């Protein structure tokens, strides 16, 4: 079952908002880096492998961060 974050008060909402804004910026920068690597890199195979490894690592870290966000209780 999808663990959706549901803010319970204003402080939670604020923290969630800051978190998702940071993540939005993070995604934009990650996309730019991966785009530059795949667009200008000589070896497409290497660029693809690096991109996949990066996406897997970041997906894991994002899941951990979201779990930490959900576990915050005041």
């Amino acid at each position, binding site marked *: 079952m999808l663990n959706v974050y549901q803010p319970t008060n204003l402080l939670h909402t604020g923290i969630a908002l800051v978190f998702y804004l940071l993540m939005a910026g*993070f995604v934009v920068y990650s996309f*730019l880096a991966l785009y*530059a690597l795949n667009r200008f890199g000589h070896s497409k195979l290497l660029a693809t492998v690096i991109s996949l490894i990066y996406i897997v690592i970041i997906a894991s870290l994002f899941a951990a961060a979201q779990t930490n966000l959900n576990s915050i209780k*005041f």
Partner: protein
Amino acid sequence: MYLPSLKKILGESQFPGQQENEEVCLVIRQHWFVFFMRLTLWLLFAAILLATDWYIGRYAPVLANSPYAEIVSLIKSIYLMFLMLGLLMLWTIYYLNMQIVTNERLVDIDQHSLLHHKISELYLSRMQDVTAEVKGLFPTFFNYGNVYIQSAAEVERFVFTNIPNPTAVAKLISDLYEKLPVDEKQKGRTE
């Protein structure tokens, strides 16, 4: 550095704008020590995470208990994500910066930032002077430095920055220039 025979294996050009009969003699990136120095700086930032754990355990144990522990964990997770992004950006910029020496010209591909990509080229026939420079403790020890190429037309010099074995690269460029047909050299000087 890698072998020009890669072109034959892949059956495609090794860089944008490569001519059909143009032979790639050398492909170089900055010396590995330059990347290592940047990586060391990145490792210092990564060490902050470990230092934080040590500091909290020793001086602020209250942050190790709920509800602060969850907030600290969240901040550490986000910090780690940005650290990984920093590592990707460091490597990408290092990887995309390259210099190519062919039997006809020099191509300098610069990736200053993620959105700043520059390709400069200089025909060997227009070349006037090549200088290799190794300056400083680490460059001398690890044998890396700059190669400056002065062209006939441009005021600014063409620079290969922090490349391994700059003396050999300068010699290779000089040798390639010497191999050019005489009429092509004269044509380059008069242009």
